[in-house]
């Protein structure tokens, strides 16, 4: 078992519109991307963020950027009462615990 953070070159989060939160995991080359990408599942993401699997809206593999993109439902629309991160730029840290 290894940590994805040790081989990823980019781990980031951001709003994708006001209602969705999207995470990008990018890898330095096609080989690493192919080793890791299938280990990233809706089940693991739901467990890391303590949300329902149905709230993990999509996981897309994007070969041109050696990237896996994960999109989840935002806990609330950006800026709604209770907001903690309007841009959604600091929601990626739990992905550092992702293993493959």
């Amino acid at each position, binding site marked *: 078992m290894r940590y994805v953070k040790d081989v990823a070159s980019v781990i980031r989060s951001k709003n994708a519109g006001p209602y969705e939160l999207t995470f990008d995991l990018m890898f330095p080359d096609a080989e690493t991307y192919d080793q890791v990408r299938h280990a990233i599942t809706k089940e693991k993401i739901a467990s890391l963020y303590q949300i329902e699997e149905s709230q993990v809206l999509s996981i897309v593999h994007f070969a041109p950027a050696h990237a896996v993109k994960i999109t989840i439902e935002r806990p609330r629309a950006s800026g709604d*009462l209770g907001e903690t991160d309007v841009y959604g730029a600091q929601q990626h840290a739990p992905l550092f615990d992702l293993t493959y």
Partner: protein
Amino acid sequence: MSELRILSPTAILGYGFPLASFQAGLERDPHVIAVDAGSTDPGPYYLGAGKSFTGRAPVKRDLQYLIAAALERGIPLIIGTAGGSGAKPHVDWNVEIVREVLQELNATAKVAVIYSDVDRELLRQELSRGRIQPLGPVSHLTEEEIMASSQIVAQMGLEPIMQALEEGAQIIVAGRAYDPTVFAALPVMQGYDLALALHMGKILECAAIAATPGSGSDCLFGYLRSDSFVLEALNPERSCTKLSVAAHTLYEKSDPYSLPGPGGRLDLRQTTFEELPGGKVKVSGTQFIPTEKYFLKLEGARLVGYRTISIAGVRDPIMISQIDEIISAVKARVADNFQDLRDYHLHVHCYGKNGVMGSLEPYGQPSHELGLVIEAVAPTQDIADTICGFFRSTLLHYGYPGRKSTAGNLAFPYSPSDTSTGAVYKFNIYHLLEVDDPKSLFTISIGEE
């Protein structure tokens, strides 16, 4: 039809650009200068309140160079999502700056202003005709929400901007616009491929963010040809690489293979990215898949109340170990004390515990010190001040179990400890509207300024 060249000076009008990069862009003889000025990222306040999230001085600074260069070369300058959110107050704010710059340059220009505000009555009718649907994980729209919105805009496609160009506009100040349109309108008018023009615009709209090292305040240059487009960073410290451009395709969207916009979507499944010498990247193969009906994206925001905040630190280990229970107990004291005030929101952001991630935080073990941001939102500023102030003073002297520090529970960095931050808005419309004519919602006025 050999090549159409586009200069994108900066990621957002007002974010600035180095003059050397801009000059290098002008030396490449662009056919148009285009810039996106907006985003929903800064949150609902700016749309709702009709305020720009960029400052007047930096916007004017950028426009001074852009307008002077466009007029001198006789090429159009196109600004999209003016004023940050693109509603009438934002557009008028931007037009006023354009006027001021023209006066200072002692110049005149044919200026087109395109409003994208949507009439509430029209939306009510369209709602009852079933022509409005949610976009993503959003509730169905209701008449009540339409009427409660303080601003509603529709995101325009290429058509209104193309019309302004056809009528000879030299400067176009557009309201809410799909980001790529300001870059793609001129080439599409001239017969260039729609998919390539839009895809190039999709990358140019963030300017040098698509280069490496990336920057939101530097230029990017695009060369559109019949079967491909090429991107070039204009600052010698940056270059476009296959990876930087492909990676940008992921930015702020949920599916990089399918990018929806007015009238259809870009399909990137056949797209190839190829590195050229000199830090350039060539892109080809992108397709445009039109939708059967034409949909425009609607955005709206409504007032939810007024906010007061108070910032305080906690260092006492006994208090920190019980922080959740203490906050709940003090909230209950507030509710008990003001039984006639029910309609408020009282929340404590607990930095050092879960202030950044809230319910998504997997750890939540408190640090040795906590930063509390107490916020109250209520129907009036006066009630918000009352609730925040009462919570703060009650927490300061609250006697929790096992307390040893009996002189006060909070460390305030400021006097006064509380700050009234004013109106609070929320996004309440994020929907698609089916239209018969892509231009009918948008009003274009052209005049000599």
